[in-house]
């Protein structure tokens, strides 16, 4: 279709022009129309409930893994505070939720990711309370689910631990920002080109800056997993991190 090749062309041009000084962050306070803000709150809430249950269950089954939950939270805190320069000439920060997803499962990270976002919304004016539902969905629901699916999938087909961890975390990080772009595009469809045109515009701003950071987050997570494999093998086994044996 002629129309769609134009869209691809437009997307590529935007990737080249727009991100020069863009920054990939969360959706700012008040920048989602109220109906969308409520919609994303509604979508995220069930995942928060699932998250509470998941943490409760894991802690009851394996109380000794509480330290690892703490580590997952601390890791997300540190990484999301690091605004790292990217090739596009702007800065962005990793999400840090990939590690906890691999260790504790995707839903536990919904809680931890939302706590991090709340901290940033209240104290740093990054993101916001009205947009917390949407930001939590992209960073603490969608990202972890992608990470978890890719991790389990690559483990099943026999990839090495490091490679699965790296790929799943990097993809989870990228999908967070693609989700953010989609959320903005849905709320602000372009008059010409509609949602797709808006999506490529926002994705151009958010996602390209994020690629090197996704790689960084993947590598950092591999480092921590390596440490845990050397020092907390029993905990990792209790949390069923490995699909079959230790590779």
């Amino acid at each position, binding site marked *: 279709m002629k129309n769609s090749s134009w869209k691809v062309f437009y997307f590529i041009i935007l990737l080249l022009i727009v991100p020069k*000084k863009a920054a990939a962050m969360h959706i*700012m306070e008040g*920048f989602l*129309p109220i109906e969308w803000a409520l919609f994303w709150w509604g979508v995220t809430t069930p995942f928060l409930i699932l998250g509470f249950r998941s943490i409760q269950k894991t802690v009851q089954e394996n109380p000794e893994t509480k330290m690892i939950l703490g580590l997952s939270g601390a890791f997300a805190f540190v990484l999301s*505070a690091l605004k790292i320069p990217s090739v596009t000439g702007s800065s962005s920060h990793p999400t840090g939720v990939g590690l906890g997803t691999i260790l504790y499962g995707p839903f536990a990270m919904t809680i931890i990711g939302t706590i991090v976002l709340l901290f940033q919304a209240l104290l740093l004016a990054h993101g916001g309370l009205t947009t917390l539902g949407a930001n939590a969905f992209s960073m603490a629901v969608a990202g972890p689910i992608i990470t978890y699916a890719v991790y389990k999938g690559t483990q099943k087909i026999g990839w090495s631990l490091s490679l699965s961890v790296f790929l799943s975390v990097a993809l989870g990080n990228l999908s967070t920002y693609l989700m953010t772009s989609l959320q903005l595009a849905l709320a602000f469809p372009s008059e010409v080109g509609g949602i797709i045109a808006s999506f490529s515009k926002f994705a151009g701003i*958010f996602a390209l800056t994020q690629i090197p950071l996704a790689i960084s987050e993947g590598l950092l997570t591999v480092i921590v997993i390596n440490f845990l494999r050397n020092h907390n093998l029993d905990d990792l086994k209790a949390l069923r991190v490995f699909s079959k044996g230790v590779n």
Partner: protein
Amino acid sequence: MKKNLVLFLAVILLAIIPLFIQKGSEFGGADGEAQEAINEINSSYKPWFDSIWEPPGGETESLLFVLQGSIGAGFIGYFIGYMRGRNQEKDKKKGKNRYAVNR
């Protein structure tokens, strides 16, 4: 652990290289870009809610970012020390060198 060192260097390089290939850029973390894009698409849109509190300036903001990072880093340091100690204790009791097995 050598592998971890290499990975760590790669992360640092990934952060440093942009500083050289994008000279003149300030690496702003301004959320303004997405804000501008929203304005272009829908110029009549006005944010309907403001942050209930904002850091008064860049200094306070960086203080809070550092605080966030150091709370996390503090726990990670504690965790590493605790696990190392715990494992040494275990190994002493078992009387074997686990590192020989795990390499």
